[in-house]
């Protein structure tokens, strides 16, 4: 029989290894200091994220957005969409012990994350299916496949970048290390 695949959830991954992550890290902590109205860093069980970053404010953020724009152009070509533009971009600091609850990025078409300081044990990103398959598929399967899984885990590691549809629900597991996990998230739309 012939098979055709429809409506998949897609994850694009790549490495961005030409950014000065030390510079980015200093910039993020500067934002933490500036944004006193947000929950203070280190408060138990509270991830911190910045308000929208001003792209031109930091050369490394600008470079990151340039890289992302290139990737987004390729992705839109591949999936048959008009080019998208950056909606917003923000920094995240997950101190030890914190996690992020399941969420989607309404109403962006694409969302993603770049890890500027992350390693094993600091919290993986878990994507969960929401198409009905999670209720119909058997609980236990012997051979995991993209078809039969109910969730998929991607590791967080410095320089890695993941891009995914804005409607793809995801969460971040607990940071079980003793140091902060730093990332930059972004949304793109029409």
């Amino acid at each position, binding site marked *: *029989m012939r098979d055709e*695949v429809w409506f*998949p*959830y897609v994850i694009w991954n790549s490495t961005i290894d030409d950014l000065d992550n030390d510079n980015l890290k200093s910039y993020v902590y500067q934002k933490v200091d500036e944004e006193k109205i947000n929950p203070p860093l280190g408060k138990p069980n509270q991830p911190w994220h910045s308000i929208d970053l001003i792209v031109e404010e930091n050369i490394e953020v600008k470079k990151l957005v340039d890289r992302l724009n290139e990737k987004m152009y390729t992705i839109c070509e591949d999936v*048959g969409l008009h080019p998208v533009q950056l909606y917003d971009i923000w920094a995240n600091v997950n101190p030890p012990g914190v996690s992020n609850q399941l969420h989607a990025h309404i109403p962006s078409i694409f969302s993603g994350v770049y890890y500027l300081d992350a390693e094993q044990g600091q919290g993986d990103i878990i994507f969960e299916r929401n*198409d009905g*398959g999670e209720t119909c598929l058997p609980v236990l399967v012997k051979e995991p496949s993209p078809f039969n899984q109910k969730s998929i885990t991607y590791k967080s590691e410095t320089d890695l970048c993941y891009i995914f549809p804005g409607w793809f629900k995801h969460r971040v597991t607990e940071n079980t290390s003793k140091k902060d996990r730093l990332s930059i998230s972004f949304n793109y739309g029409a």
Partner: protein
Amino acid sequence: MPLHTELWFPSPIWSGKFFNVDNDVLKKFAYEQKERDTGVAISNVGGWQSRAIGKGFCTSIDQLVDNLDREFNEVSKQVGLPQLEVYNIWININPKGAVNLTHDHMGAVMSGVYYVQAEKGNGNIKFERPDDARYYLPTPPDNKWTYFNTQVCEYASLTNAVYLFPAWLPHRVEQNLIDKDRISVSFNYGMKNNA
């Protein structure tokens, strides 16, 4: 580093044709059933849907199930599922004007349809995307729909065609616009008790 693309949780649709099912026998059986039973109303509007047909009542349906067992065995291996078995199978007769509203087959793992008598204008089957993307995705350039950006995909209803799909995939049947009945057999497959 170049982008690496990974597709997760896809909705595959398998298509093929069965030529070893005696459609004349099945058609005769279908109309006999319709004569003696009012059937059930589920997604069908204006059409007749039988109750579940058991094994041994119609040789053509038994042959169809043999074919489906073989195909689902292959499909299960392909997607990493345990062996599946038929849960239920039923006949649909859609006369002119009949439609089937959007529905899914929750409770089963895989579902499908085989066309005993169908042709252009009889009402194609349309599968709708099962996620939230409809709230996010814009119209593509030049209305060029792809596996990623489309909200719906359409498959022709044609005699001998068979389509297999995940049970949770919402689908509907377009209105039968012609004077000839559209006759199909639908089925659900699920986990074997001992799998």
